[in-house]
Every structure is written in C-alpha cells, then in structure tokens.
C-alpha cells in the first residue's frame, strides 16, 4: 500500500504531487474567500461575511474564555489552522474527487489520482505541526520572556525532581510534532482508504453513510488541531504555568 502522495510531474526538479495540487486548490479557495470577504466587508454583513464572522467569533470567544486578553495574538493562528485544514479536508470529500486520473510515465494503465486530500500527506501535516509548535514557542519567548521560557525545561530548584520534569517537558514538546502530524494524517488517510474500499465494493448507496462520517471526521480533525494549538499556546504564554 502506498502511503505517500503520487508524483505527477516535476518543475525544475521540484516534485508536483497530487497533494501539492490539492494544497494549491485549497490556497485558491482560501484566497478567493479572502478577496470576497475583504472586498464586501461591511457593517451590515452579507451571507459570506456572516459565515466567516460566525466561525471567527466562535474561535475568538473560545480563545478569550481560555486565554483572556492573550487571545488577540493566539486566535489568528488558531483560526488559520482551522480554515486551512477544514477546507482542505472538505474539498477531499467531494464525490469523485479521486476519480480524475493523470497519466505519468511511471503510472500504469489507470494512471494516478490527480487530486488527493492534502492532509493525507504527512509532509503537510508535519509542516502544520512544526508551524504550530514553533509558533507556540516563539509566542512563549515573546510574551513570557526568555528566562521564564528556559526555566520550563531547565531549573535547578530541587535539582533532581525538576530537572526530570524539565526533561519530560522537552520530550512532551517533541511528542507534539508526532501527535499533531500523525493524528491528522492518520485520520484523513484512513478515511480515504475506507471511502475507496466502499466505492470499490458498491459505488451506489453504500458510501453515503461513510461520506457523512468522513465529513464529521474532516470537521472534527480541523477543530481538534485548532483547539490543541489554542491550548498549547495558552499554556506556553501563561507565566503562571
């Protein structure tokens, strides 16, 4: 079973895979959304602005209830993760998304899928995980100070216990890369495989409940990623922790 994305072609040595194409489609959708909303933004909101405002308000209020006034710099990150992941996940749930084939020199008679869920590529989920963790640490240094940040990992108070706790904290931070990236990747990749199995078993009717299920997974995974980022950013930027 192939886990990685399929290579479609290369541009100046850079591999263009089907997940890269989907990522670019996600970018286009997001930029179009930004253009529509930023152009039509008004005190009396239109339909699109209403939807974006509802989502934005939900995350802003949730962040505010958790982090208080620190929500001003936390929630844009949280909302960015949510929007990018949810659009990328939902785009992959369009029926027939993977049915469009692309012929390459190395592909067989059926070719390879032109589109594949961007979040079923570990490269993307790991990039998102790295961005989340690095941004969290950057905000921690910026808002709690370098001294406070370092003492989370290295402290000489009650040497033996807290040094051990510091090491655990460090391991915990490394584990975040794995938990963030593999949770999202695993869920979406598994969903993709389940859907392709259902389509191959009986393309009419049988995939329908699974589409509903995958839509839920797509939404829940985006929320989980965003909420975890919010939670870690809150903990790391709080001086009392």
């Amino acid at each position, binding site marked *: 079973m192939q886990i990685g994305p399929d290579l479609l072609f290369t541009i100046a040595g850079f*591999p263009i895979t089907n997940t890269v194409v989907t*990522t670019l489609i996600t970018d286009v959708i*997001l930029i179009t959304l930004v253009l529509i909303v930023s152009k039509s933004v*008004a005190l009396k909101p239109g339909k699109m602005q209403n939807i*974006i405002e509802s989502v934005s308000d939900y995350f802003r209020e949730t962040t505010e209830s958790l982090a208080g006034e620190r929500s001003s710099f936390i929630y844009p990150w949280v909302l960015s993760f949510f929007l990018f992941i949810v659009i990328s996940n939902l785009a992959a749930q369009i029926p027939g998304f993977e049915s469009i084939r692309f012929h390459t020199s190395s592909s067989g008679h059926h070719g390879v899928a032109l589109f594949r869920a961007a979040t079923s590529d570990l490269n993307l989920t790991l990039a998102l995980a790295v961005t989340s963790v690095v941004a969290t640490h950057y905000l921690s240094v910026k808002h709690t100070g370098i001294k406070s940040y370092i003492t989370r990992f290295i402290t000489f108070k009650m040497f033996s216990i807290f040094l051990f706790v510091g090491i655990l904290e460090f391991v915990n931070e490394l584990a975040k890369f794995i938990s963030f990236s593999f949770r999202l*990747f695993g869920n979406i990749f598994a969903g993709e495989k389940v859907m392709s199995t259902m389509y191959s078993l009986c393309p009419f009717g049988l995939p329908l409940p699974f589409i509903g299920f995958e839509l839920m997974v797509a939404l829940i995974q985006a929320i989980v990623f965003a909420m975890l980022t919010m939670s870690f950013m809150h903990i790391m930027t709080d001086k009392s922790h």
Partner: protein
Amino acid sequence: MEIIQKFGFETKLFLFQLINFLIIVFILKKFLFKPLKRILDERKRRIEQSLQDAENAKAALENADAERKKILAVAKVGADKLMASVKVSADETKEKTLAEAKFRSQQIIEEAKNKASAEFENMNKQIGKMSVDVSNKILSKVLSELFTEEEKQKIMSRAMEMIDEKITN
C-alpha cells in the same frame, strides 16, 4: 528517518508545505482577520454607542417625566391657592352684595314707610279740611233756618273752633 520516509516524507515537499502555509497565514492575517477585526470593533463601538444613546435617552425621558411631575405638582399647588383665594373672594363678594342688598332694601322700605306716612298725614289734613267745609255748609244750611244772623255767627264760630280742636287733636 527511514520510517518517516516510508510515510512519504520528502524534505522539498515538507518545506513547500511549510512556506505555503506560512504565506496563507500571512494573507489571512493581513487581508481577512484585520478587516474583520476592524469591522467587528466598529460594530462593537456602534452597538456600545447605541446602547449609551439609549441609556441617555432613557435618563432624559426619566428626567422629563420627573420634570413634568414637578411642574404638575407646582401647577396644582398654584391652582389650589388660586381656587382658595377665588373662593374667599367669592364669599366676600357674596357677603358684601348681600349686606348691600339688605341695606338697600331696608332703605327702600324706610323711604316707602316715610312716604306712606306723609301721604297719610296729607290725606288726613285734606279729609279734615273737606269735613270742615262740609260741616260748615251743613251748619250754615241748618242754622240759617233756625237762628238769627248774629246767633248763627256765634254758633258757627263755636262749632268751627270745636272742629278745629278735634282735627288738631
């Protein structure tokens, strides 16, 4: 590293996804969240302003109501005073008019009495005079047949004196 490559990890793709996402975050922050935040803040400001205006209007209305009640109370007190003074004045006028009317009626009665009394005296005198004349004529007639002129004159004079005395008394 080998394990992660089995999952399809490739440095170039990873870096592409990383940079791509950072660009998306930048675009979202600059062109979506900022205008949204600006508009939400503006809306929040307007709502707060509207609430403040409503609060002010409510306070102004309450003040106006209190002012109205105060003016009404003052007006009521004024009206009560005026009514009381009018009542006193009306009573006084009534009493004065009554006293005047009483006085006038008594004056009229008095005048009428005097006039009637004068009239009565006048009538008495006239009746006296008439009775003297009639008596004189009767006596003259009777005496002319019985007495001489001299006796007649004496009797007449005597009778006239007696009549005069009677009338005078």
